[in-house]
């Protein structure tokens, strides 16, 4: 079984040189913008900015294309499901009704519905570059240090460091256990009957879970012996100090958030309505 995950891709670009903490703050600010607004222009601006930053980071399209394929399928299904369940959602939101195509039942295609579905796709899509860039341009060990820097307790930051550190180990354990069990004749394919298939899956998943739980004891003993958690503070090997580009990035993201919120307040609505 293939487990495709995004990983850190090292390139000498300004985006990579930004500290993890400032990238995390920027990512969270853009998340808030993306979740709060429904303004088409803000979303388009967000997407364009995201793509520009993406170009600067020199990440190749092939390196992340598997994620995009998934998202595109998800968006397509989601848009179809929305239309199937609620073809008048756009009319409800924008308050007018321009029918383009008459269809039986309540399924007449309206301009409002199309615009609403465009907006919702844009809303999902405009977040992708930021989340994706944060993952592929931040060194995993720096990620934990950045969490601590933005105020998360160092104990919890350290838990995140452990997570990122042990994902590959647990993946490898899974492969080893699965291969060992398959060598003993355990069939995981669709050929086996459902009852047998569940039993066979248990023969792989149970050892995986129990051996991984065993690691908890080993690691916590090791940390306890080294005096983890005795002090109120902790320094991080991979922590870095903010440079000018970090302040610029945060200031820019914060300015866009303020702008987006101001637009919402002035208009009194999250939506940009071209129909009125």
């Amino acid at each position, binding site marked *: *079984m293939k*487990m*495709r*995950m*995004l990983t850190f891709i090292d390139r000498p670009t300004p985006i990579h040189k930004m500290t993890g903490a400032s990238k995390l703050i920027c990512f969270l600010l853009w*998340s808030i913008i993306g*979740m709060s607004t*429904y303004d088409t222009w803000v979303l388009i601006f967000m997407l364009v900015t995201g793509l520009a930053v993406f170009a600067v980071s020199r990440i190749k399209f092939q390196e992340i294309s598997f*994620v*995009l394929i*998934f*998202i595109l399928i*998800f968006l397509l299904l989601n848009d179809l*499901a*929305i239309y199937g*369940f*609620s073809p008048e*959602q756009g009319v409800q939101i924008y308050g007018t009704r321009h029918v383009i195509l008459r269809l039986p039942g309540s399924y007449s295609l309206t301009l409002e519905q199309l615009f609403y579905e465009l907006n*919702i796709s844009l*809303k*999902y899509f405009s*977040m*992708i570059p930021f*989340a*994706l860039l944060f*993952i592929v341009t931040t060194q995993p060990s720096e990620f934990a240090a950045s969490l601590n820097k933005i105020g998360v*307790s160092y*104990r*919890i930051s*350290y*838990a*995140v*460091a*452990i*997570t*990122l*550190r*042990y*994902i590959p*180990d*647990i993946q490898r354990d899974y492969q080893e256990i699965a291969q060992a069990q398959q060598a003993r004749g355990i069939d995981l394919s*669709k050929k086996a009957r459902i009852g047998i*298939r*569940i039993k066979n*899956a248990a023969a792989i*998943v*149970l050892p*995986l*879970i*129990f051996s*991984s*739980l065993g690691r*908890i*004891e080993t*690691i*916590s003993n090791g*940390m*306890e012996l080294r005096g*983890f*958690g005795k002090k109120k503070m902790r320094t991080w090997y991979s922590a870095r100090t903010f440079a000018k580009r970090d302040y610029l990035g945060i200031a820019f993201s914060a300015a866009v958030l303020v702008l987006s919120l101001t637009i919402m307040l002035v208009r009194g609505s999250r939506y940009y309505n071209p129909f009125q």
Partner: protein
Amino acid sequence: MKKDLLNIRTIVAIGIGAAIFIVLRYITIPVGIVPNTTVQLNYIFLALIAVIYGPIAGGLIGLLGHSIGDALQYGNVWWSWVIVSALVGVGFGLIWRKLKISEGIFGWKSVVLFNVVQIITQAIGWFLVAPLGDITIYAEPAKKVFLQGIVAGVLDIVTVGIFGTLLIWIYAKTQTKKGSLKKEE
């Protein structure tokens, strides 16, 4: 009190637990009755680790496991569903002091208690919080998100009810029972 809830073992359990949660997202068992439906293993595991290490561990494993997992797998984080995972993790963990899993005890009373709690928390999470989150953030149609939430919730409640209970029972059997050693007369 705080030290008790967030000691070293809990911190490591959160880290390793979230890592297992993320890896388990990729391992699914095709059920075969309905095409393309699979048994999600990660909530079964979340139930186990939450009843061993408590609500804080459960909640944080849900939060970190779901958000980091989303980011690594899809390059995007669905915050409305991440919140539900955190909530479900806390819910599972609330009964950790009542159940004595680490002492090898998981009798019928515990099975009933665990299932009552898991059904209530998952129902609140999947039937209410997840759809409401999608409605407020994405303005998705209510009918669609409530149906999605109910389908996902019923599936999760059933799988955690069957396999989660089994997994905790198997884990409890591997633990040494209190008073299992007797002094020879």
